[in-house]
């Protein structure tokens, strides 16, 4: 078999390349190049890392005993649970909401476009801390929530305190703020899809909702997931601001409270940092699998022969 034959078969260009074929791989004996520079740099970095590690591990100012006392304390673990819950629920609310905003933005109805534009403008333009504080004050500002005919009789009415609890206020604040950022990310994702995709879908008689769910969203996901993973990690850390509500069960509040009691802020900052890092790592694993799922058809070798 000549080299050209092999190339042609590997390209899979032949009309009948469907038939599997075994090719003897022609390969030179390649002697690995040596990289003394790489070794030097690696050794240097290891030395620096060891010194930095030793400097922290043996440093009495870090109070490692306190760190280990509180790392798994029930108070801290409850904070981890709430922080995780706030993050996951906020993202679970803001992702579909952001998607709805994008679809409104692309709609022909100018009122829907305007509402979506205003929403993004408002929630992106005001500080999250202020938004959280206002959600916390909701029950003060609007003591009762009622469903009524405009200028007519009241149909249903409840006490705001029972609806907008601190947890609800924290989740509302975090998720509404997040939708503004997410919808811009999503919009960029949809814009990146070739117009020909919509046309091909229209040509086989698909209706608009089907085009969104079957063609556009699955393709946009590939582009959207990495920045959305970023945003999720961002929200994880934004949860530390929920004391503006005030909501007092999250991880940062828990570790701060212990630090204030023991007068040892450093080990408790380290406890909080450790858990944030841990949660981020878990989220990154999830992102890896999502990216792999939605990358199908794209991030795969251009193999001709399998």
């Amino acid at each position, binding site marked *: 078999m000549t080299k050209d034959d092999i190339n042609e078969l590997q390209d899979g260009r032949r009309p009948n390349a469907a038939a599997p074929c075994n090719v003897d791989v022609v390969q030179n004996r390649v002697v690995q190049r040596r990289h003394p520079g790489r070794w030097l740099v690696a050794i240097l970095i290891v030395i620096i890392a060891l010194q930095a590690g030793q400097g922290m591990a043996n440093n009495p100012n870090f109070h490692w005993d306190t760190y280990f006392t509180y790392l798994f304390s029930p108070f801290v673990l409850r904070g981890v649970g709430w922080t995780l819950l706030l993050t996951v629920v906020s993202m679970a609310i803001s992702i579909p909401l952001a998607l709805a905003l994008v679809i409104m933005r692309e709609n022909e109805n100018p009122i829907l476009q305007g509402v979506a534009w205003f929403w993004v403008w408002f929630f992106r333009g005001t500080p999250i801390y202020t938004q959280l504080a206002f959600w916390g004050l909701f029950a003060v500002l609007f003591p009762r929530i009622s469903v009524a005919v405009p200028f007519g009789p009241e149909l249903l009415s409840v006490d705001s305190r029972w609806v907008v609890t601190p947890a609800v206020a924290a989740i509302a604040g975090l998720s509404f703020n997040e939708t503004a950022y997410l919808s811009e990310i999503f919009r960029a994702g949809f814009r990146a899809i070739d117009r020909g995709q919509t046309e091909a879908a229209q040509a086989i008689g698909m209706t608009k909702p089907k085009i969104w769910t079957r063609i556009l969203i699955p393709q946009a996901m590939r582009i959207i997931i990495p920045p959305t993973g970023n945003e999720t990690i961002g929200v994880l850390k934004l949860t530390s601001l929920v004391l503006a509500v005030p909501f007092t069960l999250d991880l940062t509040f828990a570790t701060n409270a212990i630090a204030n009691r023991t007068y040892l802020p450093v080990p408790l900052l380290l406890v909080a940092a450790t858990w944030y890092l841990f949660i981020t790592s878990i989220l990154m694993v999830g992102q890896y699998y999502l990216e792999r799922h939605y990358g199908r*058809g794209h991030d795969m070798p251009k193999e001709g022969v399998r």
Partner: protein
Amino acid sequence: MMSNSTHTLSVEMDSVHKHYGQYHALRGVDLKVAKGEICVAIGPSGSGKSTLLRCVNQLESISGGRVKINGELQGYRERDGSFYPLSPGQVSRQRRRTGMVFQRFNLFPHMTALQNVIEGPVHVNGERKAEARQRGLALLDRVGLAGLGDRYPAQLSGGQQQRVAIARALAMEPEVMLFDEPTSALDPELVGEVLEVIKSLVSAGMTMMLVTHEIGFAREVADHVIFMDEGVIVEEGRPSELLGNAREQRTQAFLSKVL
């Protein structure tokens, strides 16, 4: 083949105009394509031939005139001299009568070849997945791609992708197939395999409208050739007449450049 009796007509265009803002892309096109006829449009780029094709399946809305398929007005209901636009759902239903093959294939990259083919039958027509799969595999076989159903578009050559696109359009069992420069984006050595597949549809009696720069192919398969320039049909006729013995000067000038 160019019969005028209504029941044998497939596509009928009646003084169709298309404006893009200031630009007048189609300036009153009249065209009749009979059932089973192969109508090939040639002409310089920007002459409006692709626009013409895209008006047939309503990828472009027309500014004036009428487009009919099997006698049914496309995109509108006409009453008392006024045109009432159809709902998006009705437009989608009308589009199912036509299949389109694009210059740049436009396969769905997140689906395998087979999934591309059965997407319409399953998610538009509500066909059962097992049945659609059977038909899809048969269609892939028909376009010479048996065994490649599990490949993603990125794993296929241009010619293979275009053949999947043809199978995808055929899966909807259209009454008319529209080909918009189906070989223009292909490497020269891959053009032949796509033209072979199109030729096999010709012998199966499919009604087709084809925009192409392959004059030789047009001569071989067409029943009816139209030459377009600046948004009008300058000349039309049988391929032997138009390609061999053009009457109009503009047609002669174009053919002398491409032949």
